[in-house]
């Protein structure tokens, strides 16, 4: 019974595991714009030469 379960768990594709994990999605959804938009943008703004 438990063996059956574990083999079931393994047969779940990666993508579905990702989509079934709201907290991993939350992490991605916050990290992506934090790095690519906020982080990148702020680095550029604060490295503009002052004169």
């Amino acid at each position, binding site marked *: 019974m438990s063996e059956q379960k574990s083999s079931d768990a393994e047969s779940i594709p990666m993508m579905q595991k990702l989509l079934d994990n709201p907290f991993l999605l939350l992490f991605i959804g916050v990290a*992506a714009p934090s790095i690519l*938009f906020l982080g990148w943008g702020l680095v550029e*703004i604060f490295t503009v030469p002052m004169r």
Partner: protein
Amino acid sequence: MVNNEFRTCPDTGLKFYSSAENLLKVNAVAAVVFLLVGGFYGLLVGLTRWQAVHLLAADNFYMVLTLHGLNVLIFWMIFFEIAILYFCSSVLLGCRLATPRWAWAGFVLMVVGAVMNNVIVLQGASSVMMTSYVPMEADPLFYLSLILFAVGALIGCFVFFGTLVVAKAEKTYEGSVPLVTFGAITAAIIAVFTIVSGAIILIPTFLWSVGVVGEIDALAYRLIWWAFGHSSQQINVAAHVAVWYAIAAIVFGARPLSEKVSRTAFLMYIVFLQLASAHHLLVDPGVSANFKMFNTSYAMYLAVMASMVHGLTVPGSIEAAQRARGYSAGLFTWLRKAPWGNPVFSGMFISLVGFGFLGGITGVVMGAEQINILIHNTLYVPGHFHATVVLGSTLAFMAMSYWLVPVLFRRELVLKGIAKWQPYLFGLGMTGVSLFLMGAGTLGVPRRHWDIGFAGTGGITHEFPAAAYTMLALNGMSVILAVIGGAAFCVIMVGTILFGKKLGNQKMAEPCIVAPVTDEEYEANGGSAYAIPGTLVLAMVFFVSFALYYFINWKYLAETWGIA
């Protein structure tokens, strides 16, 4: 506290836990109240833009514009979205709400913040518009009110995530969550990023307004503010797409064409949608062309593609369901035989078409750095977002309310005759608003100047073509139409809640949910229901319009600066 009482809805079979039910009710009611308030201010804005009427003086105009933006774009939307989150978690998963006390605390914070914000702005010293760009300074309480509201909304998001955990632990559902709930997860994730960005920028700005912080960098403010301002509108997109799927299931018993494809499209929202915030910074110095192009082009196109997937699969799933139920003749019998007199459907479908054709296409034009310059900071921008947020999200939420409010309050809908017409009235008015504002913007009318005649500016002599004045007059008339439609919605909702015939445990006279289309029905006629030629024709029309409009703008751009 007892948190395990529930009732099973006799009409839908859904479980409403009393903890969630009461929160759903208060959030929905608060949403409608702020829609009413914000819509009224929208009327005043429209009547001032109409140069022949020119209702408000400059100082009042900017105050009212601030109120309009915050009440409808932030308060109405987010109250409704919190209701959607609780519905999609507790009700759809048949599970108690996690930590109802925290949910109530969040709600109280949101109400306090929203009311306080209205009071402060009405005092006249915070007419900084929704964007409240520094170094323009508002009353410190203005920033504080928004922070309170944001914290309340954030609590709501975490109650939602907590409820997902409870549902999983108590095994109230099997396998993956339903697609509509997945859409709500997408909205909640975007909401978390939105609200955190809002806090990152509004807390220092609050401290600056009380003198604790010396200076806020204007460029950095714009960057972080738009992570909040733009993303908040992407919560709406994710939520209204979830509502489209829900309504397709409710009205047609439709099943998504492919769970995999639809969920992947939502995943693309999660990763890419928020990056398009950079389109607001396309003419900002300080950020590079690389930053602008990566975020608005590469990333945004992936998010746009996700929207097109939803725009194809929602009507596609409706077509498949209708064909399976026998409306299989020709290309469009399925659409002609749809319940056009049911505001739940008509509102949703007008939302879908308006969002795609008006909001979507113009959004891509605004996101392309080169052609963006044709309309940057003109009235085209409000024209665009009235198509996305009002025609798209607000109308979808209205459509959902026609179904949800009777089910939730156990009252029969009042004024059904008017409800039948309301989505058309509001949709037509708002289509006009979008088109005429975009028309005026194309003629170069600035987005935020109170008077295009430039009276009293002492020096600006620019004259706009007469067509610009016509556009603004037509916009004013469309605003009136839309406001009548919006007011009708509010009257119907408040009327239903207060005076609708009580249903108790009686079933409604007409069933409010269609039984899901079964496998046998889909498979009859050799599964031909899955061929969706009508939707594909609609999609082709969309692509052709898209391509034409896009290239017309490049042509305009080519003509802007002639080569001598």
